[in-house]
Protein backbone atom coordinates (compact mmCIF):
# COMPACT_ATOMS: atom_id res chain seq x y z
CA UNK A 1 0.00 0.00 0.00
CA UNK A 2 1.15 3.45 -0.69
CA UNK A 3 0.99 6.90 0.74
CA UNK A 4 -2.56 8.01 0.10
CA UNK A 5 -1.95 11.67 -0.59
CA UNK A 6 1.42 11.76 -2.17
CA UNK A 7 2.90 15.20 -2.29
CA UNK A 8 6.28 16.53 -3.25
CA UNK A 9 8.76 15.66 -0.54
CA UNK A 10 6.76 12.71 0.74
CA UNK A 11 9.60 10.31 0.13
CA UNK A 12 12.05 9.05 2.67
CA UNK A 13 15.37 10.50 1.59
CA UNK A 14 18.96 9.50 2.17
CA UNK A 15 19.34 11.46 5.34
CA UNK A 16 16.45 9.57 6.85
CA UNK A 17 18.04 6.25 6.03
CA UNK A 18 21.37 7.37 7.45
CA UNK A 19 19.70 8.27 10.72
CA UNK A 20 17.88 4.96 10.63
CA UNK A 21 21.13 3.13 10.10
CA UNK A 22 22.64 4.98 13.05
CA UNK A 23 19.68 3.93 15.14
CA UNK A 24 20.25 0.33 14.11
CA UNK A 25 23.90 0.52 15.07
CA UNK A 26 23.16 2.17 18.40
CA UNK A 27 20.50 -0.44 19.08
CA UNK A 28 22.84 -3.32 18.37
CA UNK A 29 25.48 -1.80 20.58
CA UNK A 30 22.94 -1.37 23.34
CA UNK A 31 21.70 -4.94 22.98
CA UNK A 32 25.24 -6.24 23.21
CA UNK A 33 25.87 -4.17 26.29
CA UNK A 34 22.62 -5.12 28.00
CA UNK A 35 22.92 -8.82 27.35
CA UNK A 36 26.51 -8.93 28.51
CA UNK A 37 26.01 -6.92 31.66
CA UNK A 38 26.91 -8.78 34.81
CA UNK A 39 24.26 -7.65 37.25
CA UNK A 40 25.79 -9.53 40.16
CA UNK A 41 28.55 -6.92 40.23
CA UNK A 42 26.09 -4.43 41.64
CA UNK A 43 23.60 -6.72 43.30
CA UNK A 44 24.77 -10.09 44.56
CA UNK A 45 22.83 -13.16 43.69
CA UNK A 46 22.06 -15.81 46.28
CA UNK A 47 19.60 -18.33 44.92
CA UNK A 48 18.46 -20.21 41.90
CA UNK A 49 15.66 -18.25 40.27
CA UNK A 50 17.61 -15.02 40.73
CA UNK A 51 19.71 -15.85 37.70
CA UNK A 52 16.56 -16.49 35.68
CA UNK A 53 15.11 -13.16 36.72
CA UNK A 54 18.35 -11.42 35.86
CA UNK A 55 18.18 -12.96 32.41
CA UNK A 56 14.67 -11.61 31.98
CA UNK A 57 15.81 -8.23 33.22
CA UNK A 58 18.62 -8.12 30.69
CA UNK A 59 16.18 -9.03 27.95
CA UNK A 60 13.79 -6.28 29.04
CA UNK A 61 16.63 -3.82 29.23
CA UNK A 62 17.80 -4.71 25.74
CA UNK A 63 14.36 -4.63 24.14
CA UNK A 64 13.07 -1.53 25.88
CA UNK A 65 16.34 0.26 25.23
CA UNK A 66 15.86 -0.31 21.51
CA UNK A 67 12.28 1.00 21.63
CA UNK A 68 13.52 4.02 23.55
CA UNK A 69 16.36 4.69 21.13
CA UNK A 70 14.05 4.44 18.15
CA UNK A 71 11.38 6.73 19.55
CA UNK A 72 13.71 9.31 21.02
CA UNK A 73 16.04 9.54 18.06
CA UNK A 74 13.25 10.01 15.57
CA UNK A 75 11.55 12.58 17.79
CA UNK A 76 14.75 14.58 18.12
CA UNK A 77 15.74 14.14 14.49
CA UNK A 78 12.32 15.11 13.09
CA UNK A 79 12.12 18.01 15.51
CA UNK A 80 15.41 19.40 14.30
CA UNK A 81 14.98 18.63 10.67
CA UNK A 82 11.38 19.71 10.20
CA UNK A 83 11.36 22.72 12.47
CA UNK A 84 10.07 25.90 10.96
CA UNK A 85 12.90 28.11 9.69
CA UNK A 86 12.98 31.87 9.85
CA UNK A 87 12.58 32.12 6.07
CA UNK A 88 9.54 29.86 5.87
CA UNK A 89 6.40 31.69 4.78
CA UNK A 90 4.06 32.11 7.76
CA UNK A 91 1.37 29.97 6.23
CA UNK A 92 3.65 27.10 5.22
CA UNK A 93 2.24 23.71 6.03
CA UNK A 94 3.72 20.26 6.30
CA UNK A 95 3.37 17.40 3.90
CA UNK A 96 -0.29 16.41 3.98
CA UNK A 97 -0.35 12.69 4.69
CA UNK A 98 -3.18 11.19 6.67
CA UNK A 99 -2.57 7.51 6.82
CA UNK A 100 -0.19 4.97 5.59
CA UNK A 101 -1.72 1.62 6.16
CA UNK A 102 1.38 -0.42 5.52
CA UNK A 103 3.31 1.59 8.05
CA UNK A 104 0.54 1.34 10.62
CA UNK A 105 0.44 -2.37 10.12
CA UNK A 106 4.16 -2.60 10.66
CA UNK A 107 4.19 -0.74 13.87
CA UNK A 108 1.41 -2.85 15.14
CA UNK A 109 3.13 -6.03 14.11
CA UNK A 110 6.64 -5.27 15.31
CA UNK A 111 5.67 -4.40 18.90
CA UNK A 112 3.34 -7.38 18.90
CA UNK A 113 6.16 -9.68 17.90
CA UNK A 114 8.37 -8.12 20.54
CA UNK A 115 5.68 -8.59 23.16
CA UNK A 116 5.01 -12.15 22.13
CA UNK A 117 8.71 -12.84 22.52
CA UNK A 118 8.68 -11.14 25.90
CA UNK A 119 5.56 -13.06 26.84
CA UNK A 120 7.07 -16.40 25.95
CA UNK A 121 10.28 -15.59 27.74
CA UNK A 122 8.42 -14.39 30.84
CA UNK A 123 6.21 -17.44 30.89
CA UNK A 124 9.23 -19.70 30.72
CA UNK A 125 10.90 -17.97 33.59
CA UNK A 126 7.62 -17.83 35.40
CA UNK A 127 7.31 -21.58 35.22
CA UNK A 128 10.96 -21.83 36.25
CA UNK A 129 10.00 -20.04 39.44
CA UNK A 130 6.61 -21.51 40.17
CA UNK A 131 6.53 -24.94 38.65
CA UNK A 132 9.99 -26.35 38.20
CA UNK A 133 11.46 -25.64 41.59
CA UNK A 134 12.13 -28.81 43.55
CA UNK A 135 9.97 -29.10 46.64
CA UNK A 136 11.68 -31.95 48.43
CA UNK A 137 14.17 -29.99 50.49
CA UNK A 138 13.99 -27.89 53.58
CA UNK A 139 10.79 -26.23 54.73
CA UNK A 140 11.04 -22.90 56.49
CA UNK A 141 8.32 -20.66 57.78
CA UNK A 142 8.57 -16.91 58.07
CA UNK A 143 6.01 -14.99 60.04
CA UNK A 144 5.79 -11.22 59.81
CA UNK A 145 5.22 -9.08 62.85
CA UNK A 146 5.30 -5.38 63.47
CA UNK A 147 8.28 -4.98 62.92
CA UNK A 148 10.37 -8.11 62.62
CA UNK A 149 10.32 -11.55 61.10
CA UNK A 150 10.08 -14.85 62.97
CA UNK A 151 11.49 -17.98 61.41
CA UNK A 152 10.48 -21.49 62.25
CA UNK A 153 11.98 -24.73 61.14
CA UNK A 154 9.66 -27.70 61.50
CA UNK A 155 12.58 -29.92 62.45
CA UNK A 156 13.50 -27.84 65.44
CA UNK A 157 10.15 -28.03 67.02
CA UNK A 158 8.38 -24.74 67.00
CA UNK A 159 11.35 -22.77 68.21
CA UNK A 160 11.64 -19.34 66.73
CA UNK A 161 14.87 -18.08 65.25
CA UNK A 162 15.58 -14.55 64.19
CA UNK A 163 17.86 -15.33 61.29
CA UNK A 164 17.17 -17.53 58.35
CA UNK A 165 20.03 -19.96 57.83
CA UNK A 166 20.00 -22.14 54.77
CA UNK A 167 22.30 -24.89 53.56
CA UNK A 168 23.85 -24.40 50.17
CA UNK A 169 22.21 -26.29 47.32
CA UNK A 170 19.22 -27.61 49.24
CA UNK A 171 15.88 -26.56 47.77
CA UNK A 172 13.89 -24.41 50.14
CA UNK A 173 10.15 -24.16 50.48
CA UNK A 174 9.41 -20.96 52.31
CA UNK A 175 5.93 -20.39 53.72
CA UNK A 176 5.20 -16.84 54.69
CA UNK A 177 2.34 -15.37 56.61
CA UNK A 178 1.73 -12.58 59.06
CA UNK A 179 0.31 -12.22 62.48
CA UNK A 180 -0.84 -8.64 62.25
CA UNK A 181 -0.87 -6.53 59.10
CA UNK A 182 0.46 -7.15 55.62
CA UNK A 183 4.23 -7.26 55.27
CA UNK A 184 6.22 -8.27 52.27
CA UNK A 185 9.22 -10.54 52.47
CA UNK A 186 11.97 -9.48 50.11
CA UNK A 187 15.55 -10.57 49.78
CA UNK A 188 17.02 -8.43 47.00
CA UNK A 189 19.68 -11.05 46.42
CA UNK A 190 16.94 -13.60 45.77
CA UNK A 191 15.09 -11.26 43.36
CA UNK A 192 11.80 -12.58 44.65
CA UNK A 193 9.36 -11.54 47.29
CA UNK A 194 6.04 -12.62 48.70
CA UNK A 195 3.50 -10.66 50.66
CA UNK A 196 2.90 -11.82 54.20
CA UNK A 197 -0.84 -11.55 54.44
CA UNK A 198 -2.63 -12.31 57.67
CA UNK A 199 -4.98 -15.18 57.11
CA UNK A 200 -3.11 -16.46 54.10
CA UNK A 201 0.02 -18.48 53.58
CA UNK A 202 2.09 -17.69 50.51
CA UNK A 203 4.91 -19.87 49.35
CA UNK A 204 8.23 -19.25 47.64
CA UNK A 205 10.54 -21.89 46.25
CA UNK A 206 14.22 -21.35 45.67
CA UNK A 207 17.58 -23.05 45.98
CA UNK A 208 20.52 -21.24 47.58
CA UNK A 209 23.47 -21.13 45.25
CA UNK A 210 25.91 -18.62 46.72
CA UNK A 211 27.08 -18.58 50.31
CA UNK A 212 26.88 -15.26 52.08
CA UNK A 213 24.84 -13.00 54.28
CA UNK A 214 21.92 -11.20 52.68
CA UNK A 215 19.50 -8.59 53.86
CA UNK A 216 15.82 -9.28 54.32
CA UNK A 217 13.60 -6.25 53.76
CA UNK A 218 9.92 -5.59 54.34
CA UNK A 219 8.46 -3.83 51.30
CA UNK A 220 4.85 -3.37 52.30
CA UNK A 221 3.95 -0.48 54.53
CA UNK A 222 3.23 -1.96 57.96
CA UNK A 223 3.19 0.91 60.40
CA UNK A 224 5.52 3.26 62.21
CA UNK A 225 8.68 1.21 62.02
CA UNK A 226 8.22 -0.15 58.51
CA UNK A 227 11.37 1.77 57.57
CA UNK A 228 13.33 -0.26 60.13
CA UNK A 229 12.02 -3.65 59.18
CA UNK A 230 15.21 -4.49 57.33
CA UNK A 231 17.58 -5.58 60.07
CA UNK A 232 17.39 -9.34 59.70
CA UNK A 233 19.43 -11.55 57.46
CA UNK A 234 19.46 -14.69 55.44
CA UNK A 235 22.65 -16.70 55.82
CA UNK A 236 23.54 -19.20 53.14
CA UNK A 237 26.27 -21.52 54.35
CA UNK A 238 27.79 -24.91 53.72
CA UNK A 239 26.06 -27.94 55.03
CA UNK A 240 28.31 -28.39 58.04
CA UNK A 241 27.87 -24.85 59.34
CA UNK A 242 24.19 -25.06 58.76
CA UNK A 243 23.91 -28.32 60.67
CA UNK A 244 25.81 -26.78 63.51
CA UNK A 245 23.52 -23.82 63.68
CA UNK A 246 20.47 -25.99 63.33
CA UNK A 247 21.46 -28.52 65.95
CA UNK A 248 22.39 -25.68 68.27
CA UNK A 249 18.81 -24.58 68.34
CA UNK A 250 17.59 -28.11 68.72
CA UNK A 251 19.82 -28.84 71.67
CA UNK A 252 19.05 -25.63 73.43
CA UNK A 253 15.38 -26.39 73.49
CA UNK A 254 15.34 -30.13 73.76
CA UNK A 255 14.05 -30.20 77.30
CA UNK A 256 11.38 -27.63 76.70
CA UNK A 257 9.28 -29.99 74.73
CA UNK A 258 6.41 -31.94 76.14
CA UNK A 259 3.81 -33.71 74.18
CA UNK A 260 4.03 -30.93 71.68
CA UNK A 261 7.41 -29.39 72.13
CA UNK A 262 7.70 -25.69 72.48
CA UNK A 263 4.04 -24.94 72.67
CA UNK A 264 3.27 -25.65 76.29
CA UNK A 265 0.58 -28.18 75.52
CA UNK A 266 -0.13 -30.38 78.51
CA UNK A 267 0.58 -34.05 78.49
CA UNK A 268 -2.67 -35.11 80.12
CA UNK A 269 -4.14 -37.54 77.68
CA UNK A 270 -7.71 -38.01 76.61
CA UNK A 271 -9.55 -41.25 76.18
CA UNK A 272 -10.41 -41.35 72.55
CA UNK A 273 -12.35 -44.55 72.46
CA UNK A 274 -15.87 -44.38 71.03
CA UNK A 275 -15.71 -40.90 69.54
CA UNK A 276 -18.65 -40.19 67.25
CA UNK A 277 -17.78 -38.43 64.04
CA UNK A 278 -21.35 -37.25 63.51
CA UNK A 279 -21.39 -35.62 66.89
CA UNK A 280 -17.96 -34.22 66.22
CA UNK A 281 -19.19 -32.57 63.10
CA UNK A 282 -21.95 -30.80 65.00
CA UNK A 283 -19.52 -29.65 67.62
CA UNK A 284 -17.12 -28.52 64.96
CA UNK A 285 -19.68 -26.33 63.21
CA UNK A 286 -20.70 -24.71 66.43
CA UNK A 287 -17.40 -24.35 68.26
CA UNK A 288 -14.50 -24.42 65.86
CA UNK A 289 -15.60 -23.04 62.56
CA UNK A 290 -15.33 -19.45 63.75
CA UNK A 291 -11.58 -19.84 63.64
CA UNK A 292 -10.91 -22.85 61.46
CA UNK A 293 -11.79 -23.20 57.84
CA UNK A 294 -12.60 -26.52 56.37
CA UNK A 295 -10.07 -25.91 53.64
CA UNK A 296 -6.46 -26.87 53.32
CA UNK A 297 -3.92 -25.89 55.90
CA UNK A 298 -3.13 -22.56 54.29
CA UNK A 299 -6.77 -21.56 54.02
CA UNK A 300 -6.35 -19.83 57.30
CA UNK A 301 -9.09 -17.97 59.12
CA UNK A 302 -7.77 -17.43 62.62
CA UNK A 303 -6.18 -20.78 62.99
CA UNK A 304 -5.09 -22.97 60.11
CA UNK A 305 -7.45 -24.87 57.86
CA UNK A 306 -7.97 -28.36 59.26
CA UNK A 307 -8.50 -30.44 56.18
CA UNK A 308 -6.25 -33.48 56.34
CA UNK A 309 -5.00 -32.54 59.77
CA UNK A 310 -4.56 -36.17 60.71
CA UNK A 311 -3.49 -37.55 57.39
CA UNK A 312 -0.96 -35.31 55.82
CA UNK A 313 2.41 -35.68 57.48
CA UNK A 314 3.45 -32.23 56.41
CA UNK A 315 0.32 -30.67 57.70
CA UNK A 316 0.89 -29.64 61.28
CA UNK A 317 4.42 -28.55 60.73
CA UNK A 318 3.73 -24.90 61.21
CA UNK A 319 2.90 -25.90 64.73
CA UNK A 320 5.45 -28.41 65.89
CA UNK A 321 7.19 -30.20 63.10
CA UNK A 322 6.05 -33.72 63.84
CA UNK A 323 3.30 -35.48 61.94
CA UNK A 324 0.10 -35.27 63.89
CA UNK A 325 -1.40 -38.21 65.63
CA UNK A 326 -4.77 -38.39 67.29
CA UNK A 327 -3.29 -38.08 70.74
CA UNK A 328 -1.44 -34.89 69.94
CA UNK A 329 -4.48 -33.31 68.45
CA UNK A 330 -6.63 -34.32 71.38
CA UNK A 331 -4.14 -32.90 73.84
CA UNK A 332 -3.95 -29.75 71.90
CA UNK A 333 -7.69 -29.27 71.87
CA UNK A 334 -7.79 -30.04 75.56
CA UNK A 335 -5.21 -27.64 76.80
CA UNK A 336 -5.16 -25.03 74.07
CA UNK A 337 -1.99 -23.10 73.39
CA UNK A 338 -0.67 -19.88 72.06
CA UNK A 339 1.44 -20.32 68.98
CA UNK A 340 2.85 -17.92 66.48
CA UNK A 341 -0.47 -17.66 64.66
CA UNK A 342 -2.41 -16.80 67.73
CA UNK A 343 -4.32 -18.32 70.57
CA UNK A 344 -6.05 -21.67 70.32
CA UNK A 345 -8.57 -21.85 73.19
CA UNK A 346 -8.50 -24.64 75.72
CA UNK A 347 -11.15 -27.21 76.52
CA UNK A 348 -12.54 -24.97 79.23
CA UNK A 349 -12.58 -21.88 77.07
CA UNK A 350 -14.40 -23.75 74.36
CA UNK A 351 -16.61 -25.47 76.98
CA UNK A 352 -15.90 -28.97 75.78
CA UNK A 353 -15.89 -32.23 77.67
CA UNK A 354 -13.39 -35.02 77.12
CA UNK A 355 -16.13 -36.89 75.32
CA UNK A 356 -16.57 -33.93 73.02
CA UNK A 357 -12.89 -34.02 72.27
CA UNK A 358 -13.08 -37.67 71.38
CA UNK A 359 -15.96 -36.86 69.03
CA UNK A 360 -14.07 -34.00 67.49
CA UNK A 361 -10.99 -36.07 66.87
CA UNK A 362 -13.12 -38.79 65.35
CA UNK A 363 -14.61 -36.18 63.08
CA UNK A 364 -11.26 -34.66 62.17
CA UNK A 365 -10.08 -38.15 61.38
CA UNK A 366 -12.77 -38.51 58.71
CA UNK A 367 -12.02 -35.13 57.42
CA UNK A 368 -9.69 -35.38 54.50
Amino acid at each position, binding site marked *: MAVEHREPGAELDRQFWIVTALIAIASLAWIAFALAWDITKVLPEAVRPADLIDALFRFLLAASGVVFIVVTTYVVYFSLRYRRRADDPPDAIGIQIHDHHALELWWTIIPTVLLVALGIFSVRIFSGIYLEQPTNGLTVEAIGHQWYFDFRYPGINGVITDEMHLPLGVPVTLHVTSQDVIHSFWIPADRIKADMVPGLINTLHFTPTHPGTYKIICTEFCGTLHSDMNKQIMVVQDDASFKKWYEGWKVKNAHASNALPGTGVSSASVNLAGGSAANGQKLFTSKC*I*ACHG*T*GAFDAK*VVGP*GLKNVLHDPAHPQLLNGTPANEDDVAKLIKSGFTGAMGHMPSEAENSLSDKDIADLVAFLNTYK
Partner: protein
Amino acid sequence: MAVAVAHDPSSGSGQAHGVDRLYAETRELRINGFLLFMVSDLVLFSSFIFAYLYLRQTGQGWPPPGISRLDVAFAAFNSVVLFGSGATMHFALENWKHGNFNKYAGWMLATIVLGAGFLSGQGYEYWTLYTKFHASWSGAGIFGASFFTLTGMHGFHVFMGICYLTILFLQTVGGVYTKQKYAGLTMGTLYWHFVDIIWVFLFSMFYLWQ
Protein backbone atom coordinates in the same frame (compact mmCIF):
# COMPACT_ATOMS: atom_id res chain seq x y z
CA MET B 1 -26.91 9.44 17.14
CA ALA B 2 -26.27 13.10 16.69
CA VAL B 3 -29.10 15.40 17.38
CA ALA B 4 -30.92 17.01 14.46
CA VAL B 5 -28.47 15.71 11.95
CA ALA B 6 -30.11 17.06 8.86
CA HIS B 7 -30.49 20.54 10.18
CA ASP B 8 -28.48 23.26 8.54
CA PRO B 9 -28.64 26.38 10.66
CA SER B 10 -27.32 28.61 7.91
CA SER B 11 -30.37 27.85 5.80
CA GLY B 12 -32.04 30.12 8.29
CA SER B 13 -35.57 29.00 9.05
CA GLY B 14 -35.62 31.36 11.99
CA GLN B 15 -32.87 31.22 14.53
CA ALA B 16 -34.99 30.50 17.57
CA HIS B 17 -36.36 27.49 15.81
CA GLY B 18 -32.85 26.28 14.98
CA VAL B 19 -31.89 26.54 18.61
CA ASP B 20 -34.91 24.62 19.72
CA ARG B 21 -34.38 21.90 17.22
CA LEU B 22 -30.93 21.33 18.54
CA TYR B 23 -32.04 21.01 22.11
CA ALA B 24 -35.32 19.35 21.32
CA GLU B 25 -34.27 16.09 22.73
CA THR B 26 -33.74 17.20 26.29
CA ARG B 27 -36.11 14.50 27.30
CA GLU B 28 -33.97 11.91 25.56
CA LEU B 29 -30.93 13.38 27.24
CA ARG B 30 -32.48 13.01 30.64
CA ILE B 31 -33.53 9.47 30.06
CA ASN B 32 -30.10 8.63 28.68
CA GLY B 33 -28.45 10.21 31.66
CA PHE B 34 -30.77 8.35 33.95
CA LEU B 35 -29.98 5.03 32.29
CA LEU B 36 -26.29 5.70 32.73
CA PHE B 37 -26.91 6.56 36.35
CA MET B 38 -28.54 3.19 36.75
CA VAL B 39 -25.56 1.54 35.10
CA SER B 40 -23.27 3.00 37.71
CA ASP B 41 -25.70 2.07 40.44
CA LEU B 42 -25.61 -1.45 39.08
CA VAL B 43 -21.83 -1.39 39.35
CA LEU B 44 -22.19 -0.38 42.98
CA PHE B 45 -24.37 -3.40 43.66
CA SER B 46 -22.13 -5.64 41.60
CA SER B 47 -19.12 -4.58 43.63
CA PHE B 48 -20.77 -5.56 46.88
CA ILE B 49 -22.01 -8.77 45.29
CA PHE B 50 -18.46 -9.49 44.24
CA ALA B 51 -17.36 -8.82 47.81
CA TYR B 52 -19.98 -11.23 49.09
CA LEU B 53 -19.01 -13.99 46.68
CA TYR B 54 -15.35 -13.43 47.43
CA LEU B 55 -15.84 -13.59 51.19
CA ARG B 56 -18.07 -16.60 50.84
CA GLN B 57 -15.24 -18.41 49.10
CA THR B 58 -12.83 -17.84 51.97
CA GLY B 59 -12.55 -20.36 54.77
CA GLN B 60 -15.32 -19.50 57.19
CA GLY B 61 -18.00 -21.56 55.53
CA TRP B 62 -21.53 -20.43 54.62
CA PRO B 63 -23.69 -19.66 56.38
CA PRO B 64 -21.12 -18.94 59.05
CA PRO B 65 -21.33 -20.38 62.55
CA GLY B 66 -24.33 -19.51 64.62
CA ILE B 67 -26.54 -18.43 61.74
CA SER B 68 -29.06 -21.01 60.68
CA ARG B 69 -30.52 -21.07 57.22
CA LEU B 70 -32.47 -18.06 56.10
CA ASP B 71 -36.22 -18.40 55.89
CA VAL B 72 -36.79 -18.94 52.18
CA ALA B 73 -40.55 -19.22 52.32
CA PHE B 74 -41.02 -15.88 53.98
CA ALA B 75 -38.53 -14.17 51.69
CA ALA B 76 -40.24 -15.69 48.66
CA PHE B 77 -43.54 -14.27 49.80
CA ASN B 78 -41.94 -10.91 50.32
CA SER B 79 -40.36 -11.08 46.87
CA VAL B 80 -43.75 -11.70 45.33
CA VAL B 81 -44.92 -8.52 47.00
CA LEU B 82 -42.03 -6.62 45.43
CA PHE B 83 -42.43 -8.13 41.98
CA GLY B 84 -46.14 -7.42 42.23
CA SER B 85 -45.33 -3.80 42.75
CA GLY B 86 -43.30 -3.94 39.53
CA ALA B 87 -46.42 -5.10 37.72
CA THR B 88 -48.64 -2.46 39.26
CA MET B 89 -46.09 0.19 38.30
CA HIS B 90 -46.24 -1.05 34.74
CA PHE B 91 -50.02 -0.74 34.71
CA ALA B 92 -49.80 2.71 36.22
CA LEU B 93 -47.59 3.95 33.40
CA GLU B 94 -49.69 2.30 30.71
CA ASN B 95 -52.83 3.90 32.06
CA TRP B 96 -51.14 7.25 32.22
CA LYS B 97 -50.20 6.94 28.58
CA HIS B 98 -53.83 6.23 27.75
CA GLY B 99 -55.06 9.09 29.80
CA ASN B 100 -56.91 7.05 32.45
CA PHE B 101 -55.97 9.16 35.37
CA ASN B 102 -58.06 7.34 37.95
CA LYS B 103 -56.75 3.93 37.04
CA TYR B 104 -53.30 5.34 36.95
CA ALA B 105 -53.73 6.74 40.43
CA GLY B 106 -54.97 3.44 41.75
CA TRP B 107 -52.10 1.44 40.36
CA MET B 108 -49.59 4.00 41.48
CA LEU B 109 -50.88 3.96 45.04
CA ALA B 110 -50.88 0.18 44.94
CA THR B 111 -47.25 0.28 43.92
CA ILE B 112 -46.37 2.51 46.81
CA VAL B 113 -48.26 0.37 49.27
CA LEU B 114 -46.67 -2.85 47.99
CA GLY B 115 -43.25 -1.24 48.18
CA ALA B 116 -43.89 -0.28 51.76
CA GLY B 117 -45.15 -3.80 52.40
CA PHE B 118 -41.91 -5.23 51.11
CA LEU B 119 -39.93 -2.95 53.37
CA SER B 120 -41.95 -3.97 56.41
CA GLY B 121 -41.38 -7.60 55.50
CA GLN B 122 -37.71 -6.98 55.38
CA GLY B 123 -37.83 -5.18 58.67
CA TYR B 124 -39.59 -8.16 60.18
CA GLU B 125 -36.94 -10.49 58.81
CA TYR B 126 -34.14 -8.37 60.27
CA TRP B 127 -35.94 -8.39 63.57
CA THR B 128 -36.23 -12.17 63.59
CA LEU B 129 -32.63 -12.60 62.66
CA TYR B 130 -31.64 -10.29 65.44
CA THR B 131 -33.82 -11.70 68.17
CA LYS B 132 -33.43 -15.35 67.27
CA PHE B 133 -29.83 -15.54 66.15
CA HIS B 134 -28.33 -12.32 67.47
CA ALA B 135 -27.33 -11.63 63.94
CA SER B 136 -26.48 -7.99 63.49
CA TRP B 137 -24.61 -5.96 60.95
CA SER B 138 -21.32 -5.98 62.77
CA GLY B 139 -21.84 -8.99 64.98
CA ALA B 140 -22.28 -11.85 62.56
CA GLY B 141 -18.99 -12.02 60.73
CA ILE B 142 -19.03 -11.90 57.00
CA PHE B 143 -22.66 -12.96 57.00
CA GLY B 144 -23.67 -9.73 58.65
CA ALA B 145 -21.36 -7.76 56.46
CA SER B 146 -22.63 -9.13 53.18
CA PHE B 147 -26.26 -9.91 53.96
CA PHE B 148 -27.17 -6.77 55.83
CA THR B 149 -25.11 -4.47 53.65
CA LEU B 150 -26.55 -5.74 50.39
CA THR B 151 -30.16 -6.17 51.48
CA GLY B 152 -29.93 -2.93 53.42
CA MET B 153 -28.64 -1.11 50.36
CA HIS B 154 -31.46 -2.61 48.36
CA GLY B 155 -33.95 -1.67 51.03
CA PHE B 156 -32.64 1.86 50.95
CA HIS B 157 -33.17 1.92 47.22
CA VAL B 158 -36.74 0.72 47.74
CA PHE B 159 -37.22 3.43 50.30
CA MET B 160 -35.84 6.08 47.94
CA GLY B 161 -38.09 4.62 45.25
CA ILE B 162 -41.14 5.01 47.44
CA CYS B 163 -40.22 8.64 48.10
CA TYR B 164 -39.61 9.18 44.41
CA LEU B 165 -42.92 7.62 43.41
CA THR B 166 -44.73 9.63 46.04
CA ILE B 167 -43.25 12.82 44.68
CA LEU B 168 -44.17 11.78 41.15
CA PHE B 169 -47.67 11.01 42.30
CA LEU B 170 -48.05 14.42 43.90
CA GLN B 171 -46.64 15.98 40.75
CA THR B 172 -49.17 14.20 38.58
CA VAL B 173 -51.94 15.31 40.87
CA GLY B 174 -50.57 18.83 40.60
CA GLY B 175 -50.62 18.60 36.80
CA VAL B 176 -46.89 18.71 36.14
CA TYR B 177 -47.07 15.99 33.51
CA THR B 178 -49.28 15.63 30.47
CA LYS B 179 -50.33 12.71 28.37
CA GLN B 180 -47.43 13.33 25.97
CA LYS B 181 -44.96 14.66 28.43
CA TYR B 182 -44.19 12.30 31.25
CA ALA B 183 -40.42 11.81 31.26
CA GLY B 184 -40.42 11.84 35.04
CA LEU B 185 -42.86 8.95 35.15
CA THR B 186 -40.80 6.98 32.67
CA MET B 187 -37.73 7.41 34.81
CA GLY B 188 -39.63 6.48 37.94
CA THR B 189 -40.79 3.28 36.28
CA LEU B 190 -37.30 2.47 35.05
CA TYR B 191 -35.95 2.96 38.53
CA TRP B 192 -38.59 0.80 40.12
CA HIS B 193 -37.98 -2.05 37.69
CA PHE B 194 -34.27 -1.69 38.28
CA VAL B 195 -34.79 -2.18 42.01
CA ASP B 196 -36.86 -5.29 41.25
CA ILE B 197 -34.18 -6.77 39.06
CA ILE B 198 -31.53 -6.26 41.69
CA TRP B 199 -33.73 -8.16 44.09
CA VAL B 200 -33.90 -11.12 41.72
CA PHE B 201 -30.16 -11.44 42.05
CA LEU B 202 -30.05 -10.88 45.79
CA PHE B 203 -32.85 -13.33 46.39
CA SER B 204 -31.23 -16.09 44.37
CA MET B 205 -27.83 -15.52 45.90
CA PHE B 206 -28.81 -15.33 49.52
CA TYR B 207 -31.87 -17.50 49.82
CA LEU B 208 -31.85 -20.02 47.02
CA TRP B 209 -28.15 -20.76 47.19
CA GLN B 210 -27.49 -21.66 50.80
